[in-house]
């Protein structure tokens, strides 16, 4: 019982508190988490191929160096160096178009996971067949199936497109 209490406490401190946004917890930690909390009524930044000009720039709080760059931007753009132009782009956008289109290697992990679980299921099925299931009925022995098949052919089971259709009654063999 003491172990479970320790476990619950550890879970609360290690896992729950960092994720919780309850303001009383925030006050305890002295952290102002409001900046990180998403206000869905205000315009947000997004990286999407179909909205090339997001509602707000990516970096909103500019430090003094960035403020200087922004002032330089108010002048003629031909005076900006290539690095400054890229820096200005990175201020207003998080990802460029090629970066957005890149995609990831996640599909490999997903496919691998799927194969692992398929394999586990296969192992489970095999194990069941060997260690759990009883004997099959005697009507599945080779001898019985032979006699049964012959009987099905004799009684012309599915003669049009199914079973007896594929038997050549003259040559006594499958077509």
């Amino acid at each position, binding site marked *: 019982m003491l172990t479970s209490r320790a476990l619950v406490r550890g879970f609360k401190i290690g896992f729950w508190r960092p994720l919780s946004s309850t303001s009383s917890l925030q006050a305890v930690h002295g952290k102002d988490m409001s900046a990180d909390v998403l206000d869905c009524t205000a315009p947000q930044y997004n990286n999407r*191929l*179909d909205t090339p000009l997001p509602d707000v720039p990516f970096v909103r709080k500019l430090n003094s160096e960035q403020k200087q760059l922004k002032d330089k931007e108010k002048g003629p753009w031909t005076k900006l160096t290539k690095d400054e132009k890229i820096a200005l782009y990175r201020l207003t956008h998080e990802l460029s178009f090629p970066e957005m289109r890149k995609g990831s290697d996640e599909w490999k992990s997903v496919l691998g996971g799927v194969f692992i679980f398929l394999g586990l299921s296969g192992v489970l099925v095999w194990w069941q067949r060997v260690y759990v299931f009883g004997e099959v*009925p*005697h*009507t599945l022995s080779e*001898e*019985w199936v032979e*006699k*049964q098949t*012959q*009987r*099905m052919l004799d*009684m*012309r*089971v*599915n*003669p*049009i*497109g*199914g*079973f007896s259709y594929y038997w050549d009654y003259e040559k006594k063999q499958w077509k």
Partner: protein
Amino acid sequence: MAHPSQLGFQDAASPVMEELLHFHDHALMIVILISTLVLYIIVAMVSTKLTNKYILDSQEIEIVWTVLPAVILILIALPSLRILYLMDEINDPHLTIKAMGHQWYWSYEYTDYENLGFDSYMIPTQDLLPGQFRLLETDHRMVVPVESPIRILVSAEDVLHSWAVPSMGIKMDAVPGRLNQTAFVTSRPGLFYGQCSEICGANHSFMPIVIEAVPLEHFEKWSTVMLQDA
């Protein structure tokens, strides 16, 4: 009966089943066409590079995808209704047989001329002769003359059962206190198997139906022998 690992319907042993097979092919083709179209559209939408999604309305395509499904439904409904009414046609049967469902066997009564009645129990697996079909064989089969219209009156003595023979396209519920009528014509001689199709207790899976379609002379000999044995 079905052959091993069979996926589709059994070959038709009656004209009604032939009609059902053709209708099934027709409906399935329509379903496959629609599914292929939808799958193609989904793949095209997911893999497009186009990004303008702000189309608001378009009358032409709305008309198309309202009228076209209606037309397709009519194309399915007309053959379906045709078969439905075909199955209910007056067919002047040569013979009337009563199939009564019990827990857990069928009993057949041929009462047109004499009083012939017998029970039809499944042959247990350990009593099968080599080559017989497990869970399908019965000790007494329902013998009928081939290529003759037969009327079957299906009912039950205790709980719900259902008298079904897939190769003839027959399934009729056996309701206690009710007589359900169905009819069939066997196109070819042979043995046609079916199984009880309404859950009826512990041995629901073990009360099969076997129809033996034979030429009329054989049928007459059989019914004489059965009457003598009774």
